[in-house]
């Protein structure tokens, strides 16, 4: 079988349910594009699939790849992959649009990921806490965060079993050796879904805006072997420093300067040991849980080690 023939067979399989089109016809269209118009095979294939999608009134997402493979949540690292997952529905959220039937969080032993089930997929209702075999979900990526989509090509089978859902939180500890700029009392852009931190009252997207106050620390934990950049949101910054957002605003108002807040925070937290746990976002660990580390617990072990060397 020639390469073009193979591609034609693949495409034919994808549309066999929805269009009455023969392998020969597909191959001949490929042939025209590739041989006559010198279009690369991948592009030719894409273009033909688009044509048939239009004819069948389907979205690319409805298309079965025919090549979905069994995977775990932790495997998800590429958009537009077709995967089979065995997962538990961890959380269901309020769909933000009529085109979405269900949205939430699903997970397996290796971690959790957001999922979206399209309304027009007409798939059965997923129940929170139940475990399912999902065949043919499609991965998606937005700003470095992955999700999976359930569409009309997805098959759902409820399993009568339970599943331990792992969290992808990491746990790091060390001395807090630095608080980076952009920490303390900050202002964020109030535009919907923006939340960018303002620089001199300006949002890089929306220009001059009346910002909303927030607390944040971008810190560096260092254990003498490696460093971990860590972000503390308002809640964890308040817990870490003992300074609430209201108190911080009052401090800044009294001093006519927001910098006093981060200066006070530096004095309270720099040069102390902490353990933080939370999900990772890019190179940052989001500090959901914070523990101040006090007196050492392993002096005896280290002394024995030293004496035995």
């Amino acid at each position: 079988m020639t390469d073009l023939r193979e591609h034609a067979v693949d495409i034919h399989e994808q549309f066999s349910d929805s269009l009455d089109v023969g392998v020969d016809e597909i191959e001949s269209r490929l042939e025209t594009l590739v041989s006559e118009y010198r279009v690369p095979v991948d592009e030719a294939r894409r273009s033909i699939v688009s044509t048939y999608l239009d004819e069948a009134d389907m979205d690319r997402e409805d298309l079965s790849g025919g090549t979905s493979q069994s995977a775990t949540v932790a495997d998800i690292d590429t958009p537009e992959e077709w995967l089979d997952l065995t997962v538990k529905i961890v959380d269901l959220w309020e769909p933000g649009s009529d085109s979405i039937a269900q949205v939430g969080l699903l997970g397996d032993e290796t971690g959790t990921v957001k999922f979206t089930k399209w309304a027009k997929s007409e798939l059965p209702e997923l129940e929170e806490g139940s475990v399912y075999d999902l065949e043919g979900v499609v991965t998606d990526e937005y700003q470095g965060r992955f999700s999976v989509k359930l569409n009309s090509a997805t098959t759902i089978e409820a399993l009568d079993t339970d599943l331990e859902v792992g969290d992808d939180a990491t746990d790091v500890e060390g001395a807090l050796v630095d608080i980076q700029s952009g920490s303390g009392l900050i202002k964020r852009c109030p535009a919907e879904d923006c939340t960018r931190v303002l620089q001199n009252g300006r949002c890089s997207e929306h220009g001059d805006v009346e910002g909303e106050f927030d607390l944040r620390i971008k810190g560096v934990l260092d254990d003498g072997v490696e460093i971990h950049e860590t972000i503390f949101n308002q809640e964890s910054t308040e817990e870490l420093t003992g300074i609430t957002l209201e108190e911080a605003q009052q401090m800044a108002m009294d001093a006519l300067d927001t910098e006093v807040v981060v200066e006070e925070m530096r004095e309270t937290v720099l040069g102390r040991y902490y353990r933080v746990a939370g999900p990772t976002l890019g190179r940052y660990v989001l500090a959901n849980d914070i523990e101040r580390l006090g007196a050492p617990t392993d002096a005896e072990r280290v002394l024995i080690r030293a004496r035995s060397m």
Partner: protein
Amino acid sequence: MSASVPTREVARRAFATEFNDATYTFKESDDDRAPVYSLLPTGQRANRVFVAGTLTETEDVGDDSEYWRGRIVDPTGTFFTYAGQYQPEATSVLRETETPAYVTVVGKPRTYETDEGDVNVSLRPESISVVDDTTRNRWVVETADRTLDRIEAFDGTNEYATMAETQYGSELSTYRDGVISALEDLEAAADEEIPAEA
């Protein structure tokens, strides 16, 4: 790793005795902005350190402008730290802290040659924090552990161990003994503080 995104240097842990012996400095590239490293005798490069101890004395040794010197004592020796107008926060801590007090310092090793031709090592602070004894004690145990890690990894396959052997020799027992006495000191202090259980 891309050269345009410099990675932050890890703050090494070393006791004062070893820190003050780290008189050899080097760069790993010809770039003017390339980091300067001090070579720790147990075989590690240090562009930044994290130290803890008792701030026992502070003195403004500056002529025209403020220039503060602090003595920070750990179980093995004394770190000397100097802060001036370019380290305003650290300077104000040295100016205002009543000694003695436990402190931690994040800073960079600096070497200078005395009139007699000796090389002295000091610490230029990025930040100085007044802390409690639990933080200081945690640092002692952590620094002991890290020092033992380096001693254990001191062999011919380790680039910085090889460099240290050339510069300082391979006699590391001082540093191991320093670790032991630091930990014994810690235990003795703990025994004094905690009343014996009935």
